[in-house]
């Protein structure tokens, strides 16, 4: 999915074999894939407290990369270092090829950020906020005007362009901030808890816009969240962070596979177990039902029905439980992600 979004130059090598020669098409080797973000042992201390501890990771161009963790885990601190707002205590980080400490202005030119807290000028209209933004990023008037109507369109605020931002609802303001964040064609867009404090419907709405953004724009998105569903829904890869450390980093699918599996519980009328075993499915028989575990439950369910029909078995009920990143988090830390980790007195301060 990620790979499809940009084309690798294909290298054709002719290798002489015994009798004929093969055309070998090699993808760019791993090291050549464009790493838009490189983080090496990044650390930030606030006094004695290590908010981020020796964090290292890389992000490929075009990815939606999630940083998932409970409140106070160090997500925002990490983002602030990558966006040059905080200076790391030690370690290095490169964004779009530039060192965040040595070339902060170059980094800033190439990134867009949507913060947790609103950063709009509420005394100005939506258009004026965007115009201001375009200007400080050095866009000329024509480019600005064109882009303003484009981004407003994308977040569905075209008809509110000339309304003062203080009259906007929370969801509208957030959408405007996202629009502003990618208005200047940044290579990397940071979204710090983009749906924090929004109701479920607005959240889904924002997700749609983020997905549209990734489809329509050539942008890499780094987002932090403590909503499991958000990471699952949007991200290609997720780094799970807890107490300032990355404790797992992989695709959502792989992370889930670590702990397992979706479970499907069916109760049937007739002999079905042996049929399922023949299909090489893992089945456990309980008193009233059959429990199947699988890595891809959505696809298995229709298959179960067609199998049942084929063999004249009637399925009476189905219970389906997806495995989730929540399970992964619990497995790794022994805690649930939304538990307020109030154990540490510094945490509240660090989050700001």
């Amino acid at each position, binding site marked *: 999915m990620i790979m499809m979004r940009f084309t690798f130059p294909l290298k054709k090598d002719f290798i002489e074999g015994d009798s004929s020669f093969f055309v070998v098409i090699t993808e760019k080797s791993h090291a050549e894939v464009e790493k838009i973000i490189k983080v090496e042992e990044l650390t930030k201390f606030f006094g004695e407290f290590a908010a981020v501890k020796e964090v290292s990771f890389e992000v490929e161009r075009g990815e939606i990369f999630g940083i998932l963790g409970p409140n106070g885990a160090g997500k925002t601190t990490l983002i602030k270092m990558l966006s040059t*707002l905080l200076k790391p205590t030690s370690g290095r980080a490169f964004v779009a090829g530039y060192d965040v400490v040595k070339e902060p202005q170059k980094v*800033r030119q190439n990134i867009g950020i949507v913060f947790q807290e*609103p*950063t709009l000028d509420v005394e100005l209209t939506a258009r004026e906020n965007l115009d*201001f933004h375009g200007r400080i990023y*050095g866009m000329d008037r024509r480019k600005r005007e064109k882009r303003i109507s484009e981004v407003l369109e994308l977040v569905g605020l075209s008809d509110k362009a000339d309304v003062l931002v203080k009259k906007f609802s929370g969801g509208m303001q957030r959408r405007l901030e996202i629009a502003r964040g990618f208005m200047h064609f940044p290579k990397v867009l940071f979204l710090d808890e983009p749906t924090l404090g929004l109701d479920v419907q607005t959240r889904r709405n924002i997700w749609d816009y983020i997905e549209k953004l990734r489809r329509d724009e050539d942008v890499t998105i780094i987002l932090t969240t403590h909503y499991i569903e958000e990471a699952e829904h949007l991200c290609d890869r997720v780094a799970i962070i807890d107490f300032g450390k990355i404790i797992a980093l992989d695709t959502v699918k792989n992370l889930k596979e670590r702990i397992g599996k979706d479970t499907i519980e069916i109760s049937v009328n007739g002999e079905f177990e042996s049929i399922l075993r023949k299909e090489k499915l893992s089945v456990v028989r309980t008193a009233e039902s059959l429990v199947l575990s699988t890595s891809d439950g959505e696809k298995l369910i229709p298959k179960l029905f067609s199998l049942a029909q084929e063999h004249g078995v009637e399925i009476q009920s189905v219970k389906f439980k997806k495995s989730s990143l929540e399970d992964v988090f619990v497995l790794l830390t022994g805690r649930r992600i939304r538990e307020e980790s109030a154990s540490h007195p510094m945490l509240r301060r660090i989050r*700001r």
Partner: protein
Amino acid sequence: MEFYGVYILWLRDLKRYMRARSRIIGSLGMPIFFLAFLGMGFRRAQIPSLEGISYIDFLAPGVVSMVVLFTGTFSGVSVVWDRQFGFLREIMVSPISRTTIALGRTLGGATTAILQGFLMLVVSFAIGFRPDFLGMIYSLAFMVLIAISFTGMGIAISTIMEDIHGFQLVINFFVFPIFFLSGALFPVEEFPEYIRFLTYLNPLTYGVDGMRWSLIHFSEFNPIIDFIVIGAFSVLVILISTILFNRTEVG
């Protein structure tokens, strides 16, 4: 430093100023009352060092300076508001340099202070102030320098202020002493010796004196000295506020 960046920030301040009508009028309330009621109350008072000058004529340039001082300092300190409401971050993560931001804010704030000061000057005509018409051009130069000095001061203060709760402190223990010790309300010569040296250390003293020289041709110091002192001070303040601003982390 980027000139377009300075311009944009300046433009933003101006737009916000033009839109805040109630603030424009509201903030002129106190100085108008100062001018009107002090002017009336001391109408017949004899101040020894002021022979032949009506008190209202003496007071008006001081009150105009007061407006510039207050508006300038407030708009400088309003960077703290921007921090509180997050907008500062939008600027801080943009590619324009910290120096540009400090300068843009200074010029924006100073411009609103000058506009307010000018408005006060016009209002004072209605209260009975009759300045030298040509002198208003000179007074503009002094207004610019006062405005830049104290907007810059406000910005410098904002970099070390945690949140807006320190605002009252700044008004009571910074702005008011500067105002009272500037000769805006009475000649600094009237102060007892042991306090008078404070007025000499106060840059606004020279600004007020320069204003008064421009508008009513009365001054306690040589206007050239006034100009040099307040001018040098405004340059110094710009340097300091820029340095302080460069050091801030937005966090």
